[in-house]
């Protein structure tokens, strides 16, 4: 198998217009002005809050001095997906939320936009991040010299989402060999298929993956690892296998009629419009759930043309899992919220519309009790369940002893090591679904742990 190249997604002007960027890039001067505002805190709280511990003041002050290449490399050294994280991170609860400016009643530094500024400049330069061979910081894992015996190491990264990309890039930058195996046609995982287009364009996710390919990471697409034989084959080719397989299909609503043609789960909907397979929606769309993915799907339905979009949630406003800024944003997009309402069944009428039967519930402690005579049927054109995701790693559990708990792969948070010492894992399949930046941090830590394990083996 050879290193596959990464195809570009053709630009769709209608999609571009309807999903114009929520936060446009800073101009060069605006970036410098913003960078100058940064206080350059010692042991900065923004850096501590970032799961990948990007040296935020370090890269910001490099923007202020005009050292854009240094700024970008500072970011990439900590987070190889700095470009997508700059766009998709919920910075309000991470770096920008930790900014000390809040305590002086000042606006926090716009860290995400500054990071994007540095990453855009680096991307435009066409350069690649250099090898990582600097000495390790005191206390960091690995030999103090920063060079591993294990550089002849070969690792297979299964899945081409953020965790695998970060793991493979870290291995490659430290001299090891990494191969990414992906079931789908395109790399990037949810960055390509699952993030709202007004935050991160699929094309940008692919460009980032392509940078990692150009660094020398091998990609194999259409590689569905679905049997013990396939695992054995990989085990004979690679010393370690990294599992960055994310979560499986979204949970089903478990109500009668959900196999109906007008039901499409949130991730399917987002992937379909981002890859150009869904360009228009009309009428009424009902999204079930109140997490960040539900919000993304509901906003997308509005932008694709749906006149009415309901977001239906069985608990109340104060219980939603979505970040507050996402919730506020979706209200601005025109999404309407139906609280304490539970779907009971869905059927189609004579005209092909869907009729969603619902009932009002009330919350008693943590349980939900139906309110008698509160049945209500909503006529809609599309029903979008978005109520959490569930992982699929049962094969590994059965044939390789990788432990699973609550549907998640059990792995040491510091090293990503699973119950099987040849298997490491990180990202959504371990944490049950957090953010891109969490997946990157986990993938990077697993890469270092595999290099360390190879080092130990070499000295044994």
């Amino acid at each position: 198998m050879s290193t596959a190249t990464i195809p570009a997604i053709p630009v769709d002007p209608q999609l571009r217009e309807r999903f114009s960027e929520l936060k446009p890039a800073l101009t060069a001067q605006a970036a410098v002005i913003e960078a100058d505002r940064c206080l350059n805190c010692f042991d900065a709280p923004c850096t501590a809050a970032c799961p990948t511990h990007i040296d935020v003041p370090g890269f910001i002050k490099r923007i202020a001095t005009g050292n854009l290449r240094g700024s970008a490399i500072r970011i990439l050294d900590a987070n190889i997906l700095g470009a997508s994280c700059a766009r998709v991170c919920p910075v309000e609860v991470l770096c920008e939320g930790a900014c000390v400016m809040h305590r002086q009643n000042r606006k926090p530094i716009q860290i995400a936009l500054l990071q994007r500024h540095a990453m855009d400049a680096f991307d435009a330069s066409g350069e690649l991040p250099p090898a990582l061979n600097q000495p390790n910081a005191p206390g960091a894992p690995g030999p103090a010299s920063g060079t591993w015996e294990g550089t002849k190491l070969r690792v297979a990264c299964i899945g081409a989402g953020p965790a695998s990309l970060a793991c493979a890039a870290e291995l490659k930058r430290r001299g090891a060999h990494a191969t990414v195996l992906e079931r789908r046609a395109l790399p990037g995982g949810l960055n390509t298929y699952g993030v709202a287009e007004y935050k991160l364009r699929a094309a940008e996710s692919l460009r980032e993956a392509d940078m990692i390919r150009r660094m020398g990471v091998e990609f194999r697409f259409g590689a569905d690892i679905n049997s013990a034989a396939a695992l054995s084959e990989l085990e004979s080719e690679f010393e370690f296998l990294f599992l960055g397989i994310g979560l499986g299909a979204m949970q089903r609503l478990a109500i009668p009629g959900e196999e109906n043609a007008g039901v499409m789960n949130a991730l399917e909907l987002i992937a379909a419009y981002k890859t150009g397979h869904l360009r228009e929606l009309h009428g009424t769309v009902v999204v079930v759930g109140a997490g960040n993915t539900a919000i993304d799907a509901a906003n997308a339905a509005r932008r694709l043309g749906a006149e009415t979009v309901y977001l239906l949630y069985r608990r109340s406003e104060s219980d939603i899992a979505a970040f507050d800024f996402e919730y506020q944003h979706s209200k601005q997009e025109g999404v309407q919220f139906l609280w304490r309402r539970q779907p009971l069944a869905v059927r189609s009428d004579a005209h092909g519309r869907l009729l969603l039967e619902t009932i009002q519930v009330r919350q008693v402690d943590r349980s939900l009790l139906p309110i008698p005579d509160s049945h209500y049927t909503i006529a809609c054109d599309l029903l979008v369940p978005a109520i959490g995701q569930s992982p699929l790693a049962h094969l590994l559990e059965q044939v390789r002893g990788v432990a699973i708990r609550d549907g998640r792969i059990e792995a040491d948070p510091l090293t990503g090591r699973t119950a099987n010492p040849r298997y490491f894992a990180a990202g959504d399949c371990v944490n049950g679904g957090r953010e891109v930046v969490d997946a990157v941090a986990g993938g990077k830590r697993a890469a270092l742990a595999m290099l360390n394990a190879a080092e130990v083996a070499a000295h044994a």
Partner: protein
Amino acid sequence: MPDLRVSNFAGAIRSPNPFWLASAPPTNTGEMIARAFDAGWGGAVWKTIGEPVTNVSSRYSSIDWQGERIMGFNNIELISDRTVEENLREMAEVKKRYPRHAVIASLMVASNREAWHEIVARAEDAGADGLELNFGCPHGMSERGMGSAVGQVPEYTELITSWVKEKARTPVLVKLTPNISDIRTVARAAKRGGADGLSAINTINSITGIDLDTFVPRPNVDGKSSHGGYCGPAVKPIALNMVQQIMADPEAALPLSGIGGIADWRDAAEFFLLGCGTVQVCTAVMHYGYRIIEDLAEGLENWMRAKGFNSLDDFRGLSVRCVTEWKHLNLNYKIVARIDEQKCIGCDLCHIACWDGAHQCIHLDRVSGPVDGHVELHAIPAAKESKSRASLSFTPVTRRERAVDPAEHGPYPTPLARIPRVDETECVGCNLCACVCPVDGCITMIRADQGVAPETWDERTKGAACEVPRS
């Protein structure tokens, strides 16, 4: 209402307020000066009059700092490029329209007695209220034996001042160059030559910066640059120092028109406190226009009212005696830094500044347990950073994860672990932390005298000229 009028500066110069425009582009023509007076300026020193020159383009360059434009400003413009006749005709017109305002003729001619006698007579005939001898221009004119070429040699300064005084009927101010090792030597020479007053400082020789693409310093004149004159906010501390040196020296002190980086009324008040009778402004006007006079005058008035001063003389020079030689400072005066935990925002800049730039006595040990004492007892900053970088953090996706843990946070707005603590047993009271702290009033320096009587270095070493005790 405090009275800002200047009644007899350097003997006889009057102006409705002490704010004058310095001899520079804002005083290039009569039209400009008229507009400045209409805006509220009290006086103007005319752009230096002499044999017309040819100027180059470009002429200016500046230093920006952290997003602020013109922290420092530099020029290579020479004196007026208009004829003496034009300038003096307009001066007469201005004087007729604004009899109460101060119009000072800045003069620069070749170094011979006749030339000076002639220009003095012509300027006074045009109605000038006083003369300012430009012995300070640091670029171009000095190559032709004028400007700072005169001001850098006390003998020339004294001689030409005395020639002017032979002829002049109005007060004569000598404008001093700072491009000299001790400005007092020239100030004394001017006084010996009979000057009625001084203006200080002129601009400081400078190269503001180099274009890193073309390697040509700014301003670029067809691929070359020249040594310029530096001014603007950056030079104020240098100007204040020289003003104080002059005013504290009985052989040099004369009525002084203070110049150098004055941009607002607070700057001006500082020059008055060091003994100036008037001040001159240029760069701030070049940046924002004549309109800045409104706040200059209003701000000074309001400050005078708050302090109970009725006239400029009530506070002029009050700070001159507060500057002394180092050897007269009290060695037993002790202050230490104190951090207001309620105000601290947790940037920890004081911690790293104290460790890397001072005396290793501000620590991040409120959670781990305060330890006072010498440096070896404490974790070094790099270890602190490494620990943070090695820590695990994740995106808080649930409300519970996002909630603040009060036990870990502590009683202040900033988490306890990030509020630095001063080890007062090691603090030397240097002020560095208070200088770097971004929050007003968060770090204050408090008295920590140890009941020891005041003692200066001079007193301590009296009678021990050869051997000084080790402190």
